[in-house]
């Protein structure tokens, strides 16, 4: 772990710390070249941001007084580990009337907590379930 949190001086990290910025499978920015793409060694995963980079952006946002943006990046850092399908499924469940009861949402929260250690996101879904219940959102829309 890094000791010192990043701040605005570290922005943009692609310029200030190019060797640390890596794709999802560990390839450095400088390795992401046309040649490597033509050779087939670069996949879409290598063009994905990592949880680490998102947490660094969260630190930078916080250092300039943008707490809510920073928290979004922290949620994103957890979501970064969820596959696309899981992200889309839970989004769908969070839309009004998709989950038929509170337990559906709680189940989804439990799943991502256990499978992806997504604690923040799990809490976020649980909180949504509580308020959806309170406001009567668990009813069929179509």
């Amino acid at each position, binding site marked *: 772990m890094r000791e010192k949190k990043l701040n605005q001086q570290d*922005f943009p990290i692609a310029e200030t710390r190019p060797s640390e910025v890596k794709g999802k499978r560990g390839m450095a920015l400088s390795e992401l070249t046309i040649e490597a793409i033509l050779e087939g060694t670069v996949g879409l995963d290598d063009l994905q941001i990592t949880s680490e980079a998102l947490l660094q952006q969260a630190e930078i946002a916080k250092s300039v007084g943008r707490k809510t943006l920073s928290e979004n990046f922290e949620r994103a850092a957890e979501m970064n580990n969820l596959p696309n399908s899981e992200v*889309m499924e839970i989004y769908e469940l969070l839309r009004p009337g998709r989950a038929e009861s509170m337990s559906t949402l709680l189940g989804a929260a439990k799943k991502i907590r256990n499978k992806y250690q997504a604690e923040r996101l799990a809490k976020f879904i649980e909180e949504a379930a509580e308020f*959806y219940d309170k406001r009567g959102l668990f009813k069929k829309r179509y």
Partner: protein
Amino acid sequence: MSNSYQSNRWKRVDDWDDRPLRLDNFAVEDPDNGFSAFNGKADPKPSIGLKGGKITSMDGVMIEDFDLIDTFIAKYHMDIDIAKEAMAIPSSKLARMLVDMNVPRKELTRLAQGLTPAKLAETVAQLSAMEIAFAYSKMRARQTPGNQAHVTNAKDDPLQLAADAAIAVALGFDEIETTMRVARNSWSNALACCVGSSVGKSGTLFQCSSEEAEELEIGMAGFTSYAETVSVYGTESAFIDGDDTPWSKAWLTAAYASRGIKMRCTSGAAAELLMGFHEAKSLLYLEARCLCLQRGMGSQGTQNGGIDGAPLAGSMPGGVREIMAENLIAVWLDLECASGNDARHSESDMRVAAKVLPYLIGGSDLICSGFGSILKYDNSFNPSSFNGEELEEFLVLQRDFEVDGGLTTVEDSKALSLRKKAIDALAYVLHDLGLASTTDEMKRSVAVASGSNDTESFKPRDVTLISEKIKTDGVNVLDLIKSLHKGGFNQEAENLLFLVKLRVSGDYLQTSAIIRDSRVVSAINDPNDYTGPGTGYRPSEQRKEELAAIRDVLDRDEVLRTEALGEMAEMKAISYKLLGKAETGIDPCEVVVGISPAFGSKIFKTLAGHKLSSVLKALQTGIIKGGAVMRLVKFWHTADTSFLGLSAARLSGSGIGIGIQAKGTAVIHHRSRLPHNNLELFSNAPITKISHYEKMGYNAARYCLKELPDPVVVPTRGEALGARFHARVALIYAIETSMTKDNASPELLDFAFLKA
């Protein structure tokens, strides 16, 4: 023209009825029914209840009665530590702080984190339109202004999308946004714009506005680099009707960031009213709720300011001021603001330009959140405030006010070559990936087309097939990069790679990020530091030159070149011979015509385009018809019409003279009159016809005979002649005045019309 005097109303009203303005709807203020910009019947007074570090009530609502929006705002937007301090400041004081250049932006954005929606609304509502514009300019997050384009067409034709995307990039738009006529065409539109926007330079961000889930999937395939259609609403019922909740939208917000895709939310006045769920609250209060939600969700920014509701907001008293006020709340909340000015709120060009002006002169993160870079009928979002038709007007406004609206003129031949390149690149990729084949005819028709009415290209059904194949084959951005490279479009492949690599670091996820010269520029490394004159954004000298460099600009050489073309024709039409000093005449039937120094020697046509030989012939014909003779004199001491005329009159045996400048401005004068008190003046040279010059000659002759003829009237249709001609006039007149010599004597001039 029929003259009916039976009308029972002033006919000016008929004239007004015919103007585009009268196509606009206007509505009365009706707070019970949601028609109020600032004063909703159910708008709450600002308040906050705090107990044990928790919010117990907000804006008059107790916690147990909170709806989903109140709940989310209280939990995620409100900073309780700041709330106590900020809510205690009277809104009148906050309003003054907003327009006080000595109060730094940072202090205000900090306080906003503890302000409730009602408090934010109450504060900005106290500012006049001018104060809002100033405060907006001070409070916007990024220093350098930017702009965003719509790139769409009525056929969803991918070739045209690629060509138009390349143009939008060249014009300098920081972001381009597409959408479709047919929902299923989204993948094709995304791929086409993605390829087109890689032509010319790298770093223009691109989005494809479609259904929420699909838009994210398109982003995940790497075609798009930002999103802004994450809409939020200010009432719970409208939000649910929009098929989302604050939590689902916050989930999407994090989802985009988690994939390294820039995003902003969208909200704008009157959306709730359009959807039928306004709760009798004002546009501004509901927007304040939307914006607090967006900050709470952790969106870096917002597309805000009327948006689709702009025409409805604009129908109300103060509606446009309200749109400005909501934008001010957005930037006060430290959000990037793509400040609307997209959906055209009026059929009146004047209302449209007036609405955009504060943003143009004050700057905005994205001045238009959709400037129609294409023609109006091709805009699948509906016409924007500015469109392909009016693009040059925007460029000229930048030049007029020396302000940076983010755009730069693209020279014609460069535009065409960019279009061709984009079309070739996309045609290659479509073929290479087995998606479609194109013909040379299709490509040529698109390259030169102003809009889709002029093209022979793909039809919507063809596009649906392409789009579905892209989706089912799982084509992604790496396939595009490989294909472009394979087709020899190496630079375009590099440009596209640059764009997708941005998502690895996520630098452009920070507030107000755009890409300039291959660098991320955001509110972090380019913060708005306005604290008065000399601070904030100022265009560099180089940028000022770019802003000035619009198409077809006159200079002295250009005027002389044009005149040189006329010289050859005149040499064949007339010959002049100077006969020495002109003396005062004694013939009581003569009209002296006095011409200016450049007449026939440097300048050869009037502003109306008449050859000067033809003008002299017409004058002579008229004078003879009127029963007098013409004597021609060249003056060197003046180029002024009045003095040319009076000098001619004083040389004339009859006391009647005509003075005429090379540009065609003429006067009939009498030797006993004061210089500017002439007999007849023909000041509108650009609309003075040959027949008028003949009539002028005739009248001059009749004055010799002591008659009082009907003065010649040159009818005007109200043309803005100054705008049309004054730059040329000033250049021509400078040529005339530079030839004058103090006290130089007039010279008698012999002339002969030559046979053509």
